């Protein structure tokens, strides 16, 4: 009985992994005002399939996967062809998660206080 269950589970899992599951998700541009290149593949030298202006990039896209060099495999619309886009240009908050940036309320220092820092605005919201 246990063996049968294992076989059923194995078949179920392998099907789930191999099937292409496109998910509609929110897309946010990392910065605006620049065209976005859409590529045929995630690898170096992949041909550009399309260039889209940031104004025309949809706020919701269809997502399949992210490559090991952070290229997202997406479709701009459910019926559009699949393309790859750089993760440095497009954020997918529901997929990548949102990093909660904290504030050290009582510390007297923050970025850029003493030596040269990563940034230069600092400090927490005063209460």
């Amino acid at each position: 009985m246990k063996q049968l269950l294992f076989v059923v589970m194995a078949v179920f899992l392998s099907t789930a992994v191999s099937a292409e599951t496109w998910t509609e998700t929110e897309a946010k541009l990392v910065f605006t005002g620049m065209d976005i290149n859409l590529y045929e593949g995630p690898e170096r030298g992949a041909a550009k399939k399309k260039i889209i202006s940031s104004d025309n990039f949809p706020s919701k896209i269809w997502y399949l996967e992210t490559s090991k060099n952070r290229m997202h495999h997406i479709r701009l619309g459910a019926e559009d062809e699949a393309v790859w886009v750089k993760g440095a240009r497009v954020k997918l908050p529901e997929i990548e998660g949102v990093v909660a940036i904290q504030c050290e309320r009582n510390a007297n220092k923050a970025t850029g206080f003493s030596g040269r820092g990563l940034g230069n605005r600092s400090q927490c919201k005063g209460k």
Partner: protein
Amino acid sequence: MGFKNIAKVLLLSATLTGCVTTSDLPFIGAYDTSDKEGRFVELYQFSDLTYTFDEEKIETDRRVMIRDSKGLIPDDNLAEYAQSILDRIVQTGPNTPLKPKVHIIASVAPGAYTMPSGDIFIHHSIFDYSDNEDQIAFILAHEYSHALIQHNRSDIIDKLRPYIVTALDIAVSQTDSDDQTKKALKVYGTDLITRDLLMPVWERKKEDEADRLGIDLMVAAGYNPNESIKALSHVKAYDDTFEAIHPVERNALEKALLKNDTSDAEIKKFNLGSLTAKFLVEFQNAFGNRHPDPQERMKKVFLYIEREYEDAGYRELSHLDFNRAVFQSEEILNKYKKSHDLELILVNEENISTAKFAEITSSARWTVTGSTVDHAYTRQAFAKLRARQGRFDLALQNLDLTSNDDGFLPGLMEKNRIDWLERTGEAEKAYARVKEVGNYYEWPLRFYPDAIRLGQRVGTKKEVSAYKLECTLKYPQSRDLCQ
């Protein structure tokens, strides 16, 4: 008011001195060379620079960092891992005698600093908000770049301040402004204008340079430069989320002016006449933007990568060692998170029920067990909880159980110790401690009010007068706090 004239005279006189070049001048329009083709590491003449080691300076820097923070993490795992990344960057970078060391400061906010000695301090939160080694590599490479290019604030101040101050004095005397404005300017002083208003302009240029060289260095070390955008987005998120408060220390005036806040409270805080405040706002506007906007900065970095390193942007990201290091230090990171949550509760909740106190006390006890038993970060939160419960004796005990540096805790903890000693009727001990701590940390502003107040209670008039005078001379812009 002749602000354009002031700017012109400033630029002209600085150039005419022959001691500075246009590339040293502030980032104003035509002087912005960040779009110049080519890799920064290849264009920059590192051979023109002299790097010197100063053991004493390294120790002073380390002490300053501890003084102004919640302490270093007394655990080697994360520091050794970060050091291995930096070593890789240093090895493949320009050949210099620099051997920077990485220290991990306990702080949940994003942050990283390079001290003039070349040592790098990063906040432990980098391991919370990064998700691969490439992002950490950018932060370290960026910081190391500041050391490589010698972005040492004191160097620039030493080199340029006399010329700027002289130029400003001339410019002000030649403007057609009325006598009141001139008087107001004298009250604030052109020297302080230079420090609070002009130096931040230089910082923008320095950050741009360090961004570009940082990219060069991380690529040479084998990392994917596109992850720098992800790392910078944390800075942007930090900027977006939190407003600036106004500590009466460096750049405080500039921060107030950023908000265009010339309300009575602000003017009083900085000892400014309303006329001076208005003048400074206009002066600041004449010099344009002070800080790099994170969005613009990310865009610049991205364009630089696309132009110089498009191929490297396809490299696989490095997760393995990062995940291992974070996993090994999971206990510390989790306990620090809990300590931070605890502090937030103490700050945000005015009325804490008995049941809630019992719950958070139990959490606080957990944070000071195991490998974090003597960490400043966890002990500090527990101590604050005890102080909130009115148990200053137990709060002080927590400080005594913290691992220390030459017998001294971070400045903020020592300040708490002085306060709690005073509250438990130990004014003489508190006074003795503020003197010891003040001397050890070379008297930052925050210890003077304690020394003056306690001196008035248990010290001599002579001592109090000396503290007042010393404080006023050292921190003239904050002299209200020296009374």
